[in-house]
């Protein structure tokens, strides 16, 4: 997805975080999916970052 293509029309958005942002985009007619996000690893940021790293490394390998 090049930047030119992003700028060519309204974005299509995945929203993680403030619900209000998803609702505003939806009201503006923008395709949006809101993620029911909650802190991973019981809210331990260091453990969460480690899990994310492992998850994504696995992900990259599986695609190669």
């Amino acid at each position, binding site marked *: *997805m*090049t*930047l*030119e*293509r*992003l*700028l*060519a*029309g*309204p*974005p*299509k*958005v*995945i*929203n*993680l*975080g*403030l*619900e*209000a*942002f*998803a*609702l*505003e*985009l*939806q009201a*503006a007619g*923008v*395709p*949006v*999916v*809101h*993620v*029911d*996000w*909650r*802190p*991973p690893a*019981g*809210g*331990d*940021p260091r453990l*969460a*970052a480690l899990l*994310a*790293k492992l*998850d*994504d490394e696995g*992900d*990259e390998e599986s695609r190669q």
Partner: protein
Amino acid sequence: MPVRAVVRAAFYQDSVALMRVAQELRARPGVREAAALMGTPANHELLAAAGLATAETKAAGPGDLVLAVDAETDAAVAAALAAADGLFAARRQALEAAVRVLPRTLDSALRHLPEANLVAISIPGAYAAAEALRALRRGLHIFLFSDNVPLADEVALKREAARRGLLCMGPDCGTAYVGGIGLGFANVVPRGRVGVVAASGTGLQAVASHLAALGEGLSHGIGVGGRDLSTHVGGPMTLFALEALGRDPATALVVLVSKPPDPTVLPRIEGALAGLRKPAVVCCLGAPTREGPGRWVATLEDAAEAAVATIRGQAWHPRAFADPTRVRARLAALGARSDLVLGLYTGGTLAHEAGLLLDPLLGPGRARVLDLGADEFTIGRPHPMLDPEARAARVREAGRDPAVGVILVDLVLGRAAHPDPAAPLAAAIRDARTAAEAAGRSLAAVASVVGTRDDPQGLAGQVAALEAAGAEVLPSNAQAARFAALLLRPDLAPSLLGHSP
């Protein structure tokens, strides 16, 4: 004096939902204080400071919701806690009705919207980088609203984004406009020919709103986050965005808004501006204006005016006030003040701009400008653009402070901001002025509003509400700061207003 708290384990709510529920609980009969917070270390400190910490709350972790109520009777406490559960359930129902599906992960969301091209992230900063990296690796552009993201993570995210040809707007990106759609705190502005690259959310909002007032609009507004032009980050997203707007056929002119770039980064920015092949206006607040490339201006208002004049092929010169005759009349009506200008701001860049204008006009020690959206004021609570109470309390405090002669405030409208921010600010200004008068003093309030007539709050009504509370409302932040300075230094009038006609 019952205080009771309950913990809902693994029940995450965002900061806006928590703020709204806490506000509704505080408004209930018999309730003295109420809190609805996630059990983070910072929030445990807030609970203790508010006298709301109990044995139950101390066990709550960052993924657990804490509800605590201090009320006059046990019955009032129980009713408030029950009401809180009902309020969260109602919010959830409204959200589910509006968005239909609520996937739990980014990958699951992508299955629902495979054509997605942008991920907007506003989760707490400690978790934001991991989700942002995941989005980049899926080939998605990022709007990263979250603040408190470590600098090293920002460097890594932007390196990854640049490697993949993706945009990483932020961290701490408050506002952006992509393809005519506002993200984050965004004023409702028309589409047009001006493309903005901004290292500041409120800076972008101010320029966009001034452009709208002048009858022009935005092609795109690309936010890059306040640290992009620092030596550590090196300006990768500013350079990427400048290059993209340079190629964009809908963009006739580019405006760059930031603090001064680090000297090690400046040559690269100058190189990009020189290579644009379309006119540019540069507003690096605090940098000495210079001769090209691009037209360098000193204020956000000047950036919009210079852009519009350039596009229309008109001559333009900066001016201190749009309506010097009216300013003269208002100064005469208000009379001179002594002592201190106290700036109480919700917009960081607006605060910075006000300080840059006030200090040289007033000299040392006569102006104090606080950015109440800065990290030190927002730990454990929402940004003051969403939650106006923290600023209202400081305005009232200023009414009791004999050192303060003028309070200077901003008010930022737009989507996702408070639905009626003028009301609590006007009430606080009224109270502060009444308190000052009761003590035999007179307190002046000077304001400016960032907004447009199409914003949900409506610019005219918000201005009228502030004026009804006795505030002087100027058409821009820069003019408001100069007006505040003139109240303390009427001797500056000839240089700022010209000689009386």
